[in-house]
């Protein structure tokens, strides 16, 4: 099974019925996860996205390489300006947001800005998008990386673009890599589960810091029924592109 599908299943399982979730650009897996949740356990979740369709019709949906592709809004019930989603977030009414992370530290803080120094970067990354704005104000922050490695899970970020764990806040931070699932705690990043096909050594040897390990499970992959849903939404496997970079 492709790690993308496992990750989609984990992302979907973060969404409870009735919650408001948002995804941004370059987010094929979050888009599919939101539909998967809506079509299974969370029919009343509110789907907000960078293509600005509120609750697009999954029957009319097909995944394309740009998350803002206007076809991603097909069959929506209304136009939901991203600005409006940001306002909802400011009011504490966005339950969850998905963000990538080029670098992730043990507190689940993220860097999406640059490798090296800001003023003279070795690599200028695409940028944080909504990370700095949303990461402190959503209730669930779902971070993902398709590159579980020491370069991703770093001791120290080159730039702090987004904020992960915050003590005392009603905020859950989940980190989903192509190998494992973590949740941010005061002690650090706690391993929740390891994806089928990977060992704990695979996971730990590719991190620059030690996560908290005190019991973990095997990540639940999507069922056959769920795979059918994912495949129907993304018949051309656009979701796997992210892994080829």
């Amino acid at each position, binding site marked *: 099974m492709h790690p993308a599908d496992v990750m989609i299943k984990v992302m979907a399982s973060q969404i409870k019925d009735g919650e408001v979730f948002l995804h941004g650009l370059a987010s094929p897996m979050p888009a599919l996860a939101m539909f998967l949740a809506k079509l299974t356990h969370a029919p009343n979740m509110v789907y907000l996205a960078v*293509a600005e369709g509120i609750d697009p019709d999954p029957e009319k949906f097909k995944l394309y390489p740009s998350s803002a592709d206007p076809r991603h809004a097909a069959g929506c019930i209304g136009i939901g300006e991203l*600005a409006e989603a940001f306002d909802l977030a400011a009011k504490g009414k966005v339950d969850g947001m998905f963000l990538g992370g080029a670098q992730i530290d043990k507190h689940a803080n993220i860097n999406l800005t640059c490798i090296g120094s800001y003023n003279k970067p070795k690599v200028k990354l695409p940028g944080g998008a*909504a990370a700095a704005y949303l990461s*402190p104000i959503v209730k669930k922050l779902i971070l993902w990386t398709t590159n579980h490695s020491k370069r991703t899970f770093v001791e120290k970020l080159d730039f702090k673009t987004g904020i992960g764990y915050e003590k005392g806040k009603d905020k859950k931070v989940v980190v989903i890599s192509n190998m494992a699932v973590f949740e941010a705690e005061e002690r650090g990043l706690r391993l929740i589960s390891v994806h089928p096909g990977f060992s704990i050594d695979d996971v730990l040897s590719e991190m620059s810091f030690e996560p908290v390990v005190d019991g973990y499970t095997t990540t639940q992959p999507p069922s056959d029924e769920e795979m059918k849903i994912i495949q129907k939404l993304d018949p051309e496997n*656009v979701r796997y592109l992210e892994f080829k970079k």
Partner: protein
Amino acid sequence: MKDKLVDLDAAVDLVRSGDTLTFSGVSMVRKPMAFIAKLIQSGKKDFTIIDREPGMDFDILVAAGCVKCARAAMVGFELFGLAPNVRKAVQEGEIQFIEETCGAVVNGLRAGAMGLPFLPVKGIIGTDLVELHEKLGNWKIINDPFGGGEIVAVKAIVPDVAVIHVQKADRYGNASLEGSRFEDVYKAKAAKKLIITAEEMVPSDYFKENPERNTIPYCYTTAVVHVPEGAYPTACPNYYPPDYEEVLRYLKMCREGKVKEYIDEFIRRW
């Protein structure tokens, strides 16, 4: 209402070297690519370009050497990778790049649209963006005067020119955005000059019959240009999707060091 219909060259004449510019759309959607081609051709430069999440528009302007400073929350080609020319120019110190965050760009543009000197914006505090923007004078952490604690104030963003590609417009500059609007209405209202490029020209009765369609009324508009396929290869909702193959061809030519050839071709298209 005065007739504001002009051709692309006349619209480009409204821009001066050194201006701060903003463009409609995000990523591969509703970017005013035809205008950008003509802008590159004009030889004007030293632009500051600002947007929430641009893509090929920023990358090709940077590749053409027109840009002094780019300010955005994200610039790239999503699954197709980084913006090659922005990346290179930033890494080689050829342009200044100001990393933004979506909520701040949006509220800065809204402040501009509302005629306010600034707007507060939540979040952000605790990230490395604050120091960067405080130094540049774009943001300042202030105390909520009503006791809610610290909050970021974003200085109004008032571009010299906004170029907005819309689906429909009349010759007086009334314009209709269909589907996703992004911050385009705010951009249109914040800018000192507003250039509308339109996929299709409609008679004013189109708006009179249903005034809700008029998302950008003529009183904001400086000039309107009829440019079918004016967003190509990015999408124009209800008209055409992004041409992913063409975007990939651009990226391939960039990789192969042939960006100047692509630009020549891109200009010739218009």
